[in-house]
């Protein structure tokens, strides 16, 4: 096993170059540079909340929280697209599957179980809870935690089922397979009365996580939900960052740079792709569950092709392999459109921004911005690459260029 990671590793693009704003140096500096964006993000998040409270615009936090949940989906896609080099046009469907599973289970009355022998046991295990709906009639439903676990299990199964054959396809065929999956899920939701057909499901109860923490859309819980969403985004970036810098990440990089090449290196490409795909589907589903409890409902449009395409577009606009870029761009753009800043020009602005960002800054807007800021701050901030690193960097550029050429069909 070890021989696999020996020489070839140096050929593979250094994942650090893709992560956050790190200069790519080892030791303390790398940790410092790695922690810097986390601190910056946390400070910005707190600053936004304090600022909104000061100006009396706390209601904006609701949209910001929703945008943060959407960012989780985009972050998952970032892993699939930027690191494994695969396109999934079906992530909206995973988001919806997660949300709908949770919504159906927590709103569907199962009081017919009441007389059975199982009910007391299920109740004592907190799998079922008795509660009242907004009209005051009493219900017996699955508890949110149990529904969350069920959603995770279901999405894992579905993602494996779709991913196992689909990830053996390459390039555009995979995109089509996931797109078809998304359309099928969307239409099934629209046609199913259990899922509320075109209206979706409303009246999803709040979710008491632990302690006083509750996922709910109530005004009083607005700030804590906002911080919860921020924490989830931070945690996701942390986990994905560590994953990307691990053996798995290097294997993914190799797959991204050339699948045949990676396979020749002994990497089980299909297995790695499947793992990453399932992980990102789970992230999307988790976002869906939290989103559904937060907004109190979900509609079939969440599974629509347009949503899925939008996630892919946001991941690309953020720089694809750049976790921070993706998190920030996705949150910012979704927030603007949820607040309705551009009015009826929302889609037009989104399309135009997408074209501009992708054509002018294919690596995401944060990287050039960071380089520029460091340049402004003075030379000492610019990490001068050592001779070896510079060579590695130029190799990277060369291999990227080669990949680009091969991609354009000129090779």
């Amino acid at each position, binding site marked *: 096993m070890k021989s696999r990671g020996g020489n070839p590793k140096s050929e593979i693009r250094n994942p650090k170059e893709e992560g956050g704003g790190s200069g790519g140096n080892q030791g303390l500096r790398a940790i410092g540079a790695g922690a810097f964006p986390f601190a910056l993000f946390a400070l910005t998040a707190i600053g936004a909340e304090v600022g909104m409270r000061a100006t009396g615009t706390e209601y904006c936090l609701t949209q910001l929280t929703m945008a943060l949940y959407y960012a989780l989906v985009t972050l998952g896609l970032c892993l699939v697209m930027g690191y494994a080099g695969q396109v999934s046009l079906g992530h909206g469907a995973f988001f919806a599957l997660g949300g709908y599973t949770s919504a159906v289970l927590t709103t569907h009355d199962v009081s017919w179980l009441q007389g059975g022998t199982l009910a007391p046991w299920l109740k004592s295990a907190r799998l079922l809870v008795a509660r009242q709906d907004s009209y005051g009639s009493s219900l017996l439903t699955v508890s949110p935690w149990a529904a969350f676990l069920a959603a995770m299990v279901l999405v894992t199964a579905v993602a494996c089922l779709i991913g196992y054959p689909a990830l053996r396809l390459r390039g555009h065929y995979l995109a089509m*397979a996931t797109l078809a*999956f998304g359309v099928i899920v969307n239409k099934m939701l629209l046609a199913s009365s259990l899922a509320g057909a075109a209206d979706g499901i409303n009246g999803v109860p709040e979710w008491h996580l632990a302690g006083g923490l509750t996922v709910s859309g109530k005004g009083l819980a607005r700030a804590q939900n906002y911080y919860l969403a921020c924490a989830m985004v931070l945690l996701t970036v942390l986990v994905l960052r560590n994953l990307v810098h691990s053996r798995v990440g290097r294997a993914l990089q190799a797959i991204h740079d050339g699948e045949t090449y990676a396979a020749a290196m002994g990497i089980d490409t299909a297995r790695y792709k499947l793992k990453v795909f399932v992980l990102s589907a789970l992230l999307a589903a988790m976002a869906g569950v939290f989103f559904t409890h937060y907004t109190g409902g979900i509609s079939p449009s969440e599974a629509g*092709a347009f949503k899925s395409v939008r996630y892919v577009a946001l991941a690309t606009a953020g720089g694809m392999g750049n976790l921070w870029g993706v998190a920030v761009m996705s949150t910012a753009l979704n927030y603007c459109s949820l607040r309705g800043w551009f009015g009826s020009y929302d889609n037009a602005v989104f*399309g135009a921004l*997408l074209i501009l960002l*992708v054509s002018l800054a294919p690596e995401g807007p944060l990287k050039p911005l960071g380089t520029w800021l460091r340049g402004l701050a003075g030379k000492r901030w610019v990490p001068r690459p050592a001779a070896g690193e510079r060579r590695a960097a130029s190799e990277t550029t060369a291999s990227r260029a080669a990949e*680009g050429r091969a991609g354009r069909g000129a090779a």
Partner: protein
Amino acid sequence: MTGENLALQYLLSGITKGSVYAAVAVGFNLIYSATGVLNLAQGEFVMLGGMVAVTLAQYVALPVAVSGAVVIVALTGCLLEILFFRKLDRHSVLHLIIITIGLSIVLQEAALHIWDEKVRSLPYFTGNEVSSVHFLGATISPQVLWVLGTVGVTVLALQGFLHYTLQGRAMRACSSNPEAAMLAGINLRTMRTLAFGLSAGLGALAGCVISPITMTQYEMGTPLAIKGFAGAILGGLGNPMAGVLGGLLVGVLEAASVSRLPAAYNDVAAFAVLLLVLFVRPRGLFGAGNAGSVREG
């Protein structure tokens, strides 16, 4: 009406819709062969074709309006290629595909703001809404014949162009081996622009002939792009004629599912079959073993 006739009726309606998907699928293939890019804005060309023709038809005769629309949209296609794809040399294929998504959104929004959200249509080319032709026991609108005829003739003409003219052969050379084509003195960039122009024009023509039947609206492009993409993939990317069959198949499957399943499921059957085909034959029904793998690898 007997069951047999009903089946024929559904089949014909499937083929009519399918021929538009086929036109979109051929457009996908033309651009894909020449550039390796999937142009997801392909459906917008169909929409633009219909819109421009409807507007022109207010001032000039129908044939002039249709040809005018085709020329205008084809030029738009060329312009898009020159403005965006020619400049972006260091971008990966994935980035270019995302740019086509952006273009599709912008074109759609532009159409919404230039025209409006109203549903329009061209007049029937011959006859009107109620005139019908009897065909093997099924009753069809003469416009269906126009659609089938126009798309059929155009696709055949395109096939002739690709195989028997110098330009067409040069275009195929670009897709099979761009470097060798360049060495042989073929101007790759011109060929790519030509590919965009051709597929935009083809889409626009399909948009014109289908307009009296399905109407034209600014939102119609996206579903068409999805179905056309499905057709191209089903046939096997990179082969225009396989794309025609793929597109027709998607249309027929759709019509068949409408006849058997509740309306809400109308896309489910077509896409489920597509998924199954992909899992059994990963390169589509007629895809060559290694066509395109150089680009995607």
